[in-house]
């Protein structure tokens, strides 16, 4: 992803390093495709807020939908919002990352934008469970298996999106330094390992018991 600085010269928005722009970029079509770095609100606040709005909005609607007298409406609304909420937590980065990427967000901004959704979700969970547990235990609850899975999914998806977005750009608007950067590969691997260990390994029970051991060590 390149920000055009002058004739034939640009800045790689992914790394911040200077980059040569291919002559073909001068074409009008390519000018549309080369990302200009948007304002902070456009490149960071918008994708982050979109993800948060979907995650929190669907949760709120889901939690009140059972009060609707009409059972058909209740069931459909609960189905759609519940699905939307879980999809946002499990796969939100697939939406947030490309938006941030194509609006010129830096790597750090893209990562933070993707992590805000699971972190805010975890914070709402911590607040919710303070009804059941003391504050310290509630904080520990905030790093439960679900949260770790969401982080792992985010890592996996960020790595994938990075590669796909770079590949897309290269095909249409010029080539960033690498289509498959090492960081993206590491991110994918970390995500895969995280999802496997926490969610797939014997259905997640092993990780759950490790988590409980941590609880015992800290609080009992």
């Amino acid at each position, binding site marked *: 992803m390149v920000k055009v600085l002058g004739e034939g010269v640009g800045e790689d928005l992914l790394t911040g390093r200077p980059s040569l722009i291919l002559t073909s970029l001068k074409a009008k079509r390519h000018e549309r495709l080369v990302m200009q770095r948007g304002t902070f609100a456009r490149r960071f606040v918008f994708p982050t807020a979109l993800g948060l709005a979907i995650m929190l909005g669907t*949760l709120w609607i*889901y*939690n009140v*939908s*059972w009060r609707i007298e009409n*059972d058909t409406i*209740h*069931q459909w609304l*609960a*189905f759609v919002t*519940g*699905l939307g*909420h*879980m999809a946002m937590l499990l796969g939100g980065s697939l939406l947030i990352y490309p938006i941030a990427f194509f609006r010129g967000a830096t790597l750090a901004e893209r990562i933070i934008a993707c992590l805000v959704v699971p972190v805010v979700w975890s914070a709402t*969970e911590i607040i*919710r*469970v303070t*009804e*059941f*547990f003391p504050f310290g*235990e509630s904080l520990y*609850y905030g790093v*439960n*298996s*679900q949260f770790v899975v969401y982080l792992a999914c985010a890592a996996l998806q960020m790595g994938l999106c990075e590669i796909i977005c770079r590949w897309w750009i290269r095909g249409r608007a010029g080539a960033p330094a690498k289509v498959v950067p090492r960081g993206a590969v590491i991110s994918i691997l970390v995500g895969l390992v995280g999802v496997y260990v926490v969610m797939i390994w*014997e*259905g997640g*029970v*092993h990780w*759950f*018991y490790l*988590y*409980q051991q941590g*609880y*015992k060590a800290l*609080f*009992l």
Partner: protein
Amino acid sequence: MINKLIRGRALKLAGLFLVPLLIGLSPASSPLSDAQSPKRPNIVFILTDDHRWDFMSRAGHPVVKTPSLDRLASEGMLFSNAFVTSALCSPSRASFLTGLYAHTHGVQNNLTPWRDESVTFLELFKQAGYDTAFIGKWHMPGRLPKLRGVDLFVSFTIQGGQGRYWNCPLIVNGVETPSRNPYITEELTDRAIEFISQKRDNPFCLYLSHKAVHHEWSPPKDLARLYEDVKVPYPKEADTWVTSMNGAVYAGTFGRLDYHYKNYCRVVVDVDRNVGRFLNKLEELGFAENTIVVYAGDNGYFWGEHRLVDKRWAYEESIRIPFIVRFPRLIKDPGRRAHQMVLNIDLAPSLLEAAGLPVPEHMQGKSFVPILKSASAQGRKAWLYEYSKDFPYNTPGIEGVRTDTHIYIEYSSKRPPELYDVVKDPRQQRNLIDTEEGKRLLPEMKKMLGDLKKGKKFD
């Protein structure tokens, strides 16, 4: 053989003195001579995990068909008001074994360990000359204990003691042993059948404790599509994702409600047919007439009621259990439904009394033998419900009092107390606490709760 006989006699003799010593009774008051008569009954206690009271065709379930449990009930007695004093596996299991409330036996949740000094009914039966076996799920916090008075101890420790449905490694008398049958319910039933089939001179006491029907509800292959096209009448407040939202996933229920519900039904059906297999063997061996068979669940389960899954909360779906007793020698009107309230803590004293053994004074349960004998026997008036916080499950500590008609619930959190008329409002949808009726009932319920906590009985 001679050594075995001598050992057996020595144990009986020791039991003659040890039982009274343990339970504070004089030897003269112990009816052991009666227990040692040729007619002393065998004991079979079958315990399932999370089997809710109404998931039996006999209890009117719209989907599940359970011919073996129905048969057991028609040949014996179905208790339609059976409860657990704590709706959680470990405390409830310890209560069944000891006849004590959780605050007394100490296993208050899935984190507080079993105390080795606790006396189980298996130990008391052993001391009275029985051959004893514990087969199946132990699942109490801490290491697998060396249970006193248990001749055969088959259990498992994998997955935190929950075991698994397929190829569950067992621990047989302390030795790791692979499962011979790939499916856990069949494996445990096979071992139970082997135990009762052994040639012996003594009566037997068998505790058969299934992993089923606990999550992850993995049914045997031939039942994998059972009820697939059935439309289940879920409660109004439930929805597809009630199993996945707001912390519900800790119950192992991530996914759709219908998916998990039907697998639960399938696993119940498999338990039923294994119960049938076991009962047939009991009959074939000629033991049916002289064996007390008790079938129970360790707690209930929510399937969307109150927008909950799992158990723990003091609502009917969670605290009620299936409870069937068959003992032809004692029950003269088989097929009767008993409406008196019975509890998990009643099991141990009842089995002991039914076998003619003394009931230790420290046991907090009340024998239901009089109810087996007579439909008009007096039931208890009230009992204490207790639940201790169990991280990370989203339920506060709970104390409550359940009477024949009402339940009053207090929470350890800021959640306001609740009071329900369980006769007029069995689904507990209308909290009476701020109504005129509630204000009228509240002082008595609060007093009763206080008295129960102090140890007073309302039997």
